[in-house]
């Protein structure tokens, strides 16, 4: 049990997918200007990422491995993720047009969110079983969403700050992300303690 907890804590905090693994920076920078959008993007990514890790595992173990087609891993993962994203987009368009609009281009772009591909591949590399994969996926997704939402909160405040002209916008956002990563380094070693 404690093994799973540490895995989860590790995925959320210690090896935070954005701030430590530096994956998924595109939506992290792009959809963090407003809290509302960040909530939406976080939810969408959590959904996609968890689903993607699960289905990738199934595809990997029941379709690719039995036939020795591991070399098709990246390709088939991408296709699966793309389909899931498409599905999510349709559901969101139906249920919440405003969310779809605020997420804008970033919703279809979850497809190319490297975190979404990266986490299933890391799962394979780490040799996680199905439950572990799902946990790691969900943990990474929660870590991503959490950091995204916190970041959006900070950016909304920085929006009103008197930032030097040349640092306005993405520049100061990147500096902030760097300082956030610095703060997250404080978690280093937590997952090792058992």
């Amino acid at each position, binding site marked *: 049990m404690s093994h799973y907890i540490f895995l989860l804590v590790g995925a959320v905090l210690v090896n935070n997918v954005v701030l430590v693994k530096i994956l998924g920076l595109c939506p992290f920078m792009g959809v963090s200007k407003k809290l509302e959008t960040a909530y939406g993007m976080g939810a969408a990514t959590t959904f996609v990422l968890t689903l993607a890790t699960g289905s990738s595992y199934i595809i990997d173990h029941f379709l690719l491995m039995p036939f020795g087609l591991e070399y098709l891993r990246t390709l088939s993962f991408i296709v699966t993720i793309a389909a899931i994203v498409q599905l999510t987009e349709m559901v969101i368009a139906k249920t919440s047009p405003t969310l779809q609009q605020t997420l804008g281009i970033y919703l279809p772009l979850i497809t190319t969110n490297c975190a979404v591909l990266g986490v299933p591949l890391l799962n394979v590399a780490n040799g996680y079983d199905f439950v572990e994969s799902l946990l790691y996926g969900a943990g990474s997704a929660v870590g991503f969403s959490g950091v995204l939402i916190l970041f959006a909160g900070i950016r909304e*405040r920085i*929006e*009103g700050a*008197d930032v030097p002209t040349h640092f306005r916008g993405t520049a100061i956002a990147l500096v902030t992300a760097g300082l956030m990563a610095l703060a997250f380094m404080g978690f280093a070693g937590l997952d090792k303690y058992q």
Partner: protein
Amino acid sequence: MLSQLFKFHGGVKPASHKDLSNQAPIVTAPLPSRLIVPLHQSIGGTPRPVVAVGDRVLKGQLIGEADGWLSAAIHAPTSGTVVEIAMHTRPHPSGLSSQCVVIEPDGRDEWIAHGPADYAAMTPADICSYLQRYGIVGLGGAGFPTHGKLTANPKVAMAELIINAAECEPYITCDDRLMRERAEEIVRGTAIFRDMLKPQKVIIGVEDNKPEAIAALCAAVTALAEPFTVVPVPALYPAGGAKQLIRVLTGKEVPGAMRSTADMGVQVFNVGTAYAAWRAIGHGEPLISRVVTLTGNVRQAHNVEALIGTPMDELLRLASPNPDTDGIIMGGPMMGFLVPDETAPIVKTSNCLIAHSARLFPPKAPEMPCIRCGACARACPHELQPFELYWHSRAKDFGKTQQYHIFDCIECGCCSFVCPSRIPLVQYFRFAKSEIWAREREKKASEEAKQRFEFKQFREEREKADKAEKLAKAAAAQAAKKAAEAAAAAGGTVAAEAPAAAGDDPAAAAKKAAIAAAMARAKAQREAVQAKNTDELTPQQAHEMAAIEARRAAAGVSEAPAASTDSRTE
């Protein structure tokens, strides 16, 4: 007796400086050289002038007729000649002008025939229109027509009638002196309000730094055997804000979004208003003068009974201002404003003139960035987060300011008072508020424009259809004619079908036109209904506007000593 007093959050205790002017009795100001009476002195419609240039008017004669329900009449403050009806600078932070009637006094101060009203025979509706015709408005600062507040909300039983005698702003003592000298008339005026609103309780709230006034009021209440309670409230700025006073006396909190305190079963009137109402009913005198405190950088601070329309500089001279006076603040030092033009006249809501000097009010230190220390939030009587409001107002992020309830701000100035960074917070909030209002206006205008545009397009379509129909009819007629000719030539049944076939088209076109016309009617109806809706809203909006105007009236822009910039430029 009322046993329990409540507290409101925050508040500040600036030095009161009231003893400068509260020692001397009220004196009647001499007639000024001329009187500039603005027509628009209260919230609501601008009264229509009913005199012409050259007319001779008597003291108390109607010169501006109330325009609409939410408006109050304007009267000649003295006898004389109307010399001008023109734009003059208003006592307003903008320094803009509005329509004024200028009267040159003839020195005789001759009253128009007047006498007490037959109060016993008057119905509440009569009293309302009487007060409106006699120009009675709230004298506390907002200038809301009094009859508007006396029309009680039929749905909510009136629990408390509060007479606001807190007078919490520093320097101002006009209500204090009024209570000391004319307590009986105040109590009689209060009785009128009581008769109108039929509240369960009548409370007169006075800040406890005015013991003489409290004593005078108590004596008057006992003498007249009225069941009113005079309650001393702790002196804490802004205890005299209507909502704060309600909170202190009754424990009720009136939300900022609520248009009228009557919805909570409370109504508040200023002491001066009660006095003015009694002068109107008991003596037949319209509101043509008021008590004004002259104080600040002057040698003889005192209160005067001044005619509405007296130019401020002329009035302030009565208190012999010191030579280093460099401006006049109308209202108190917390919410007043430096008048942009010192020849602007006294209006019904001018309670105090403070001679401004750099010695008395040192120029502000340069504004520093906000350090979010939260002193403002601790001082805010409305429990807002002024630093957040400031942050977003400064960045012109008005949506966020509304999320942080900017319209609940009463602009009392407590936040600016305590701010260690000396940020003119209230100024930022006023800026944000007026930007939001402007935006609303623009939005309304653009919606209207859109409707009109769509209607025009629709009309053009219809006209085109009409034209097409006419053409079709003409063509059909022509075809029929030809067919008839052909029939005449050939005879037979074939010809009979032709006009019918030709007639098909015009029929369809006519049908189309009919549909279009019906749609137009429906649309017009819809629009009519909408228009009606907005008509109905108007009094409520007017209420809102009232609140807005009140804050505006209490606000200040002006020229200031340039010293505050000096230290910024290294």
